[in-house]
């Protein structure tokens, strides 16, 4: 794992000191709110419905046990004893007081973390595949590159006042778990025909008001050209992006209005200018970063106890069926710890749970933890022989829910329970759906199904790429929920289609039940997932289930 150098440490301390002075100037009146707002946003501090909110970056979703314990300590000391993990690999604290924030930032700096550029019209926290460095299907670990991009984008003087926010994601696996096609820039690590490593560069994807799947701007970019090429893209966007309408300001609109050919030509032109500016120091730094991400020393051991426990304990068996992913090392597995206990708030963890996870990572997980964009916590390197003990500990902490990838593993943004931009609540809808399908005891029968809920058009809950997406809106002063179908967030990314008119809050759970009923009725066999059935059958049988009255009316 990467550890802060003296340079990183000095930079972050300097930023905290600056922010401490800015908070003082705000409170004593020398800074107005208008002047202070961009400064606090640059440091991750938002104002929400009931309180401030501090968004802390977890770069490429990677944490060690010490950092996780510090997040727990911050939650206890300055918040209400919990934190909320987000779809962009951040953690949010919902109740900080303005004067405490500089102390919270110092506490983060103590463990090599910060909240810089988690807001504002700048390059945001760089995200990566949450199985990085562990996945069996991985070509290369994307985290060294993500760390390089973090350093390059941090405090980049040209790019602090872009037309709009800018998000970069990196994946090192052909199976895209980082949603690279829905980012301003998506980087897929690939090898060319002679085996040299580089990137496929995707530009102009994004969800929000105008969802778009990104386009390939360069199908093979040599590794050493990465930073000048990124700089060229963002530089072209900075000049060309629209500043007259914030709904048209993201790079996806710039690319679609300019045309990918013309946009590419401008980027390549600028890239030629910038290429010579990077004299190799970036590649030397990358090599040093790569060393710090060297794989742990995996042990070789037998795991009969794992198989025995599976036979003896059906709950353990269910957990291992859903929450494990294949690891590159023999005998190891990747454990996804669900933060989606039925009826709980998606993505929330108490400080006690955080400490349990830290302990498990330290004892059984080579001291590594990951946060996924699906709002779960991952123990990336667990030997199967340790799994029964890990499971028992998770179970005691209320963290052993066996539902990863199932209907109750719902992504949900904070919605109008917290967010000032929201038009409706998301959390209660997620809670009700999960509770209902737990009562029905159907979720294992239903199999893989991704429900994603956003509380407004900005789509923090990724509803467009949910197999079932739910968008909360305000319709004439009442919460109303619109359903989209057939979305896909993976390497075969698709934007879901709107099913029809929305549903009031008390009708949304029955609507989802009808939808799932239609799937179970129409699927070829248990092996055909919801998404596969939707692709085969088209929307009609699902719409008919959602809107039964309409069908009756049509038939009459």
């Amino acid at each position, binding site marked *: 794992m990467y550890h802060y150098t003296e340079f990183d440490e000095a930079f972050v301390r300097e930023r905290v000191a600056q922010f401490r002075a800015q908070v003082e100037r705000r409170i004593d009146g020398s800074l107005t709110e208008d002047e202070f707002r961009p400064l606090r946003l640059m440091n991750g501090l938002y104002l929400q419905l009931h309180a401030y909110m501090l968004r802390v970056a977890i770069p490429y979703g990677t944490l060690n046990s010490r950092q996780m314990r510090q997040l727990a300590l911050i939650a206890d000391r300055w918040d209400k004893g919990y934190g909320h993990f987000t779809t962009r690999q951040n953690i949010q604290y919902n109740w900080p007081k303005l004067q405490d924030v500089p102390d919270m930032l110092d506490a983060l700096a103590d463990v090599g973390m910060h909240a810089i550029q988690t807001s504002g*019209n700048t390059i945001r926290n760089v995200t990566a595949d949450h199985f990085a460095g562990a996945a069996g299907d991985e070509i290369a670990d994307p985290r060294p590159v993500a760390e390089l991009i973090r350093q390059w984008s941090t405090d980049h003087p040209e790019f*602090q006042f872009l037309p709009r926010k800018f998000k970069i994601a990196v994946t090192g696996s052909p199976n895209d778990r980082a949603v690279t096609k829905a980012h301003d820039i998506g980087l897929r690590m690939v090898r060319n025909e002679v085996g040299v490593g580089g990137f496929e560069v995707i530009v102009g994807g994004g969800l929000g008001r105008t969802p778009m799947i990104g386009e390939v701007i360069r199908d093979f970019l040599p590794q050493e050209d990465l930073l000048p090429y990124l700089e060229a893209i963002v530089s072209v966007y900075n000049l060309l992006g629209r500043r007259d309408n914030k709904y048209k300001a993201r790079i996806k609109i710039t690319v679609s209005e300019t045309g990918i050919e013309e946009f590419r030509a401008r980027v390549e032109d600028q890239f030629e200018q910038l290429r010579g500016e990077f004299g190799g120091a970036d590649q030397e730094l990358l090599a040093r970063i790569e060393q710090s991400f060297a794989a742990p020393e995996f042990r070789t051991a037998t795991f009969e106890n794992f198989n025995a426990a599976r036979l003896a304990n059906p709950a353990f068996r269910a957990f291992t069926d859903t929450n494990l992913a294949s690891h590159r090392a023999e005998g190891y597995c990747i454990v996804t710890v669900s933060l989606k206990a039925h009826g709980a708030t998606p993505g929330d963890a108490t400080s006690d749970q955080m400490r349990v996870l830290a302990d498990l990572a330290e004892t059984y997980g080579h001291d590594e933890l990951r946060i996924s964009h699906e709002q779960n916590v991952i123990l990336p390197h667990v030997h199967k022989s340790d799994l029964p003990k890990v499971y028992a500990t998770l179970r005691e902490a209320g963290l052993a829910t066996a539902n990863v990838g199932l209907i109750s593993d719902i992504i949900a943004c904070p919605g109008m329970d917290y967010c000032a931009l929201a038009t409706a609540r998301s959390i209660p809808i997620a809670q009700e759906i999960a509770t209902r399908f737990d009562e029905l005891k159907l979720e294992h029968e239903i199999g893989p199904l991704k429900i994603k809920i956003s509380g407004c058009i900005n789509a923090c809950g990724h509803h467009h790429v949910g197999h079932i997406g739910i968008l909360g809106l305000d319709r004439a002063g009442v919460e109303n929920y619109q359903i989209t179908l057939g979305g896909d967030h993976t390497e075969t990314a698709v934007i879901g289609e709107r099913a029809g008119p929305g549903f009031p809050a008390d009708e949304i759970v029955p609507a989802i039940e009808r939808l799932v009923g239609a799937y179970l009725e129409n699927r070829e066999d248990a092996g055909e997932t919801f998404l596969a059935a939707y692709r085969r059958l088209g929307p009609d049988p699902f719409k008919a289930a959602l809107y039964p009255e309409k069908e009756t009316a049509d038939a009459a």
Partner: protein
Amino acid sequence: MRPDGTLPSRVIDLNRCYAHHSAADVLKHALTDPQVGRTALVSSFGAESVVLLHMVAVANPATPILFLDTEMLFPETLDYQQSVAERLGLTDVRIIRPDPEEAAVRDPQGLLHRTDTDACCALRKTAPLHEALKGFDAWITGRKRYQGGRRTDLEFFEAELRVRIKINPLTHWAPGDVQEYMLNNRLPRHPLVAQGYPSIGCAPCTSKVAKGEDPRAGRWRGSEKEECGIHFVNGKVVRGPLPAPVEEPQKEDIMATEDTVIVTDTGFGPEDWAHGFATPNTLPATAGAALAVDLSPDADLSVLDGRLESIDMIRIDFPSFSDGRGFTLARRLRLKGFHGRLRAKGHVIADQYAMARRSGFDEVEIAAELARRQTEDQWLARANWKAHDYQARLRA
């Protein structure tokens, strides 16, 4: 040409057609779309009016502008109306006044507002506007969704009483957008805004509220109007003497002047360039004399190709601190090999000084007003711009 179709159906079609357009686009199209018809802009020439006036002037300066002179306006508003119309080149400003006979009967003293504001509004605003709009199929307003609670449903086009279309180009704008638009387009502000009037209507019903002042001083109250220093001469409102302005601390140094301030790593200094500024279009044909060039943030740098060697200084405009194009322009000029002086001018804040320097600027030119607000120590605090520079390490 008169539009066809019923009004509600036209409105539905128009909203569908322009659903994803920007304010300026909606306005431009509305002024030419036969489905809209004859269109006027109704403007109070108040605190924010200049935004729509500017958009209309860009789209078609001959658009009829209906300016409602209630005869109760501040003299500053009347002056501002004339100067804005002239500056924007608006050729058809129609001044709408109350019917003189009606006014003579119903409000002979000009004091109706004290006893019945609604009746005053009806006489001086509603009736004249209704009359003036008779010849039009549509009118443009500045209403926005965020105003007046959560009016999330306000569309670009609305059917008004089934007789006329109301066009709301700014409906999607957020609270800061008006200010940003005014900054970006350098539009003149209503003179009373600077004096503490965030919104400006008729004089008797508008007053400013300053920090520390009795908050009720600004409220409309019949009894309080006796004391507010407003009286009438020939039917026009004349404002009494303003409260003494807040005293500016007088300093002997540069800050006392209204000259611009040049910020460098050593702090504030005076302007030292005495040779004027050319634009890319007015570059002298031959090199020779001292030459400085002004660039706007949307400048195309290729017009300077081959000329960079002969230019002593390039000055790039920052219309708003949130517009970061100037940083990229500076960096590109340096990449193209420009070695002369590079200056950022306009709305750059102290917290951006390090960004400006790292992007390639040598100095920042700010207005005296900004220099008073963001004092020299705040700029000097960022003079250590070479420290903690990630990008410099990566490019070595």
